């Protein structure tokens, strides 16, 4: 039974998507159905987390299932979970559930297509996190793009067309480079199974993978798609994009780039750390001057991905655990922030700071939730984000004090832009766009965002839940991680 769970997690939402598409239902029924499927998905995740043996000493693959797909090239449907995948998976299903519920509440047009695509996206994302075969990974990786393209292009804002085409082409270019690397690595090894594939010393293959992940994350200078995509998508899609989809890139860095490529990582570590640091600083600076709410969240997301990449390429246990923790944190944070931004935009009709302000008075729920999310986002010490960033910087400190100093500087910038965001929305006198008719968050919205926040608070109380249960003891979770220490 256990070995089926990963597969169930992948295909449950996809079946749900088919039902949405094929079975005629009314708008309300559709939304409720999709939300239900997403919640059942969360339930299955809880079952997985509960049955998962985090105490297993080597933190190896569990819930493994393998079936041949095509044998002549050694491609198989191989899924399984590492301890860290469990956490990322949990973050993904929770955020997806929140996003779907938000869309249900917001009442998106053309619900059949919409909810089907969201569920399909859920399946694809879950697939990325459980895939243990290079080609299957690639398949899910690409499959994510299909619904995202339509979700952005159909339900997005005014400039959605340009934004979507930029997003898809940019990410596809990276992905195609990865495909080249997948082919080369897989054929070279004679199997596409990640566990069995030989570790490669080729810098070029590594770069192919790294390109895909760097674009999707995104790292500077591959982020040109980011501001438009995050601004033009519907808020819940932005939430998924920045919360979950970007994490697949970080996951890819971890599961493939770092594990399979020992020497290239060592050789290119400095380069990648430089890029990650630039992303961090650049994203923070731009977030600091972004004129609108989503702009701040978008660029901050880029900065956070830079930070996570720093942690990953520290390639020591502190950095890796911190990165995993921070992936979960940031997924929840940016999802919550985007949903709140959506709620604000919905009310005020704009996300520009010039026309926002003063929403705190008389709207305690909005104020409390935005404030709480914001201060966790800026990694106030004691929060889970702080724990993640602390471990990341601690890890990268071992690679050189300079990285940690720059990272700390960027965290300072994070405080600046996040406070600017909070104040821009909540504080000072009410702005023209914020009149009496602008209501506080409704119960449904609270019900959607608060669980995310609750997860964050729970993690703040016990960040070691993730940091201590991601890699088994002694970083033997994946063959190869140990040698990188």
């Amino acid at each position: 039974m256990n070995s089926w769970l990963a597969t169930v997690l992948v295909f449950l939402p996809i079946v749900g998507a088919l039902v949405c598409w094929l079975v005629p239902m009314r708008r309300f029924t559709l939304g409720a159905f999709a939300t239900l499927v997403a919640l059942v998905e969360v339930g299955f995740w809880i079952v997985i987390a509960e049955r998962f043996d985090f105490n297993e000493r080597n933190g190896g693959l569990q819930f493994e299932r393998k079936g041949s797909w095509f044998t002549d090239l050694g491609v198989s449907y191989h899924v399984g979970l590492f301890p860290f995948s469990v956490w990322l998976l949990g973050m993904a299903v929770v955020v997806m559930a929140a996003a779907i519920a938000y869309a249900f509440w917001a009442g998106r047009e053309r619900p059949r297509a919409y909810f089907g695509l969201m569920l399909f996206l859920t399946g694809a994302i879950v697939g990325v996190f459980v895939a243990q075969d290079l080609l299957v990974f690639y398949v899910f990786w690409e499959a994510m793009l299909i619904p995202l393209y339509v979700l952005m292009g159909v339900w997005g804002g005014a400039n959605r067309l340009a934004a979507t085409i930029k997003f898809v082409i940019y990410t596809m270019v990276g992905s195609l480079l990865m495909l080249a690397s997948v082919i080369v690595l897989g054929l070279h090894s004679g199997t596409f199974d990640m566990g069995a594939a030989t570790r490669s010393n080729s810098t070029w293959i590594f770069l192919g993978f790294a390109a895909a992940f760097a674009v999707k994350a995104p790292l500077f200078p591959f982020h040109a798609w980011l501001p438009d995509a995050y601004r033009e998508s519907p808020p819940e899609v932005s939430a998924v994009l920045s919360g979950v989809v970007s994490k697949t890139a970080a996951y890819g860095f971890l599961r493939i780039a770092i594990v399979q490529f020992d020497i290239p990582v060592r050789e290119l570590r400095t380069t990648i750390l430089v890029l990650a640091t630039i992303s961090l600083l650049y994203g923070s600076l731009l977030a600091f001057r972004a004129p609108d709410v989503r702009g701040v969240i978008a660029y901050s997301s880029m900065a956070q991905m830079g930070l996570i990449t720093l942690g990953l390429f520290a390639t020591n246990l502190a950095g890796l655990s911190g990165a995993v923790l921070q992936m979960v944190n940031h997924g929840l944070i940016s999802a919550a922030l985007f949903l709140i931004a959506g709620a604000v935009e919905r009310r005020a009709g704009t996300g520009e700071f010039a026309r926002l302000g003063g929403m705190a008075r008389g709207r305690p729920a909005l104020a409390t939730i935005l404030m709480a999310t914001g201060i966790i986002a800026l990694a106030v010490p004691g929060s889970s984000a702080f724990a993640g960033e602390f471990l990341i910087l601690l890890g990268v400190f071992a690679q050189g004090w300079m990285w940690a100093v720059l990272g700390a500087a960027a965290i300072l910038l994070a405080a600046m832009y996040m406070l600017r965001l909070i104040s821009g929305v909540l504080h000072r006198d009410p702005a023209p766009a914020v009149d009496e008719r602008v209501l506080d968050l409704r119960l449904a919205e609270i019900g959607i965002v608060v669980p995310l926040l609750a997860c964050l608070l729970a993690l703040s109380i016990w960040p070691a839940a993730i940091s201590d249960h991601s890699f088994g003891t002694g970083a033997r979770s994946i063959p190869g991680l140990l040698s990188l220490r």
Partner: protein
Amino acid sequence: MIVSSWICLGLPLAAALAITLAGNRITRRGAGYLATTACAGAFAAAVVTFFLLWDRQPADRSQASTLWSWLTAGDLHFGLRILVDPLSVFMMLVVAGVGSLIVWYSVGYMDGDDEERRYFAYMALFVFSMLLLVQGGNLLILLAGWGLVGLSSYLLIGFWHQRASAIAAAKKAFIMNALGDATMALALFLLIQQTGTLDFEAFSSSTSGVAPQLASNHWAINLIALGLLGGAVAKSAQLPLHTWLPDAMEGPTPVSALIHAATMVTAGVYLIVRTHAIFELAPKVQDLAAGLGAATLVLAGLIALVQTDIKRVIAYSTMSQIGYMFLGVGLGAYANGMFHLMTHAFFKALLFMAAGIVIHALAGEQDIRKMGGLRRLMPWTWAAFLIGGLALVGVPPFAGFFSKDSILAAALHHGWYGDILWFAGLGGAFLTGLYTFRLIFVVFGGEQSDYVREHPPHHHGDRVARWSLFVPVGILAILATIGGWIQFANVWTPVTDWLRPVAEPLAEATGWQEAASSGLAVALGLMGAGLAWSYYGSRHEAIPTWPRLRALLEHKFYFDELYDALFYRPAVVTARLLYALVEGPLVGGTIAGVAGVFRGLGRESSRLQTGLVRVYALAVAASLAALAIVFVAVR
């Protein structure tokens, strides 16, 4: 004992959560009482802890307790851990005690405000954070508390969030504190790298634990100490990271009293005492701390001379007094520093709260130029303020006298450097007398000003509110008077003895040093007071008229302008430049350019398709000719 200290920690947090979650289901005043009760309960728990600890042998007065592993990575484990020892209990008593008084006071002060519940939630959160800071059993938990008090401070400074100035001040406070957090975090990284642990027991002395290991790396230990000092300086508003504190007076007055006078801003002192072993291994940094303290105390005293906002004057005085504490702990007089911390908490809270009553009575007016002659209208307040002022100046037998002067005495123990610091401290004493009594004379002395006549002071709210204003002030007035009697240097030293197991003082002044310092300091303080009387007592002039110096002082030595030009502007300009030069043209433009090139190529190749069938044939034939020739040529 452990249980009582966990209770002490947990009660305020529970109150904060309860108020937040209860929302409208709790009355405004109910929230206030809840918070007060929780803080008082915390104080009671702290007292219990204190007595339990008292019962033990001095060597046995340290106990740690870990709830769970808060953060781990591999072999590194940082527990959610508290450490109960004389130092933390000392701080617990101060924090919970003064805290509960001020929260109580707030019930009256904030009476009628729209968002009282939010206020009390924040206050309770602050008390919890501060207790976490002082109880934390390792540097990481301390840092967590450190950040959370910064957060509460931010929330409370910006409590009146419609005021742009309040929000700006809150942001400034948070960001400058975050800077300190960052340097501390870096110090922690280095410390972990060097020793692999952050538990305080490992750093309890400069000779045992991991100290020898640390001492071997000169660079590392200096950097660690410097990083920690950065955090301490930011939190305690010492030079050069002091500019946020005066602005922080935008918050409600009880907030200023609790956070920006009594407790949070003194956390830096606590940090240095707590990690004294590290500082002792890096004596230059320790000297730097003392030097910064001395510089701050003089500078802040000077600036206080020209301030016209009643709270800002007290704020600068706070900076100045914390400068004394830094001076003390920087010189190794840990107990003296901590002692001054305690007395300062009493009298500074008293001053703020008395000032709060004035402000409250004058409908929110804070400008001392509009005040005057309040002595007859508000005699009790005047008395309280006077007690606070005397304690601040260090006039015997008020609290300040006992604590401040022994810090000065310790300076004499430190060679020529100590002598300089000593003179600075004495100068500071003079300035303290001057600005304190300037304030008292301007506000309470002389004739009633026009403003006062137009707005005769009256107390808002009902009796309960009034009582909650006056009772805590009364208690604090008593404490400011007698609080210093628990130690009289070289004669009667229970505080020093109590703290000795945690922080063995490096310097203990001799009798004549104590006597000389005390005498001079008191004399200078009184001289300052006298000068103030001669200058402000008769003529009603709030500010000295000495244009150039005045401008310098009013601009607070141009620190704000400097930071604006050094940090904020560059960040803004860099961000703008990045938008204009990198984000648009380079990153966005590259895509547009590539897309344009491809579209152009597409258009060209599409134009090849002329529709002329002869051209199609020509293309086939030409490529055939090429292919055939190549085949034959390369075969």
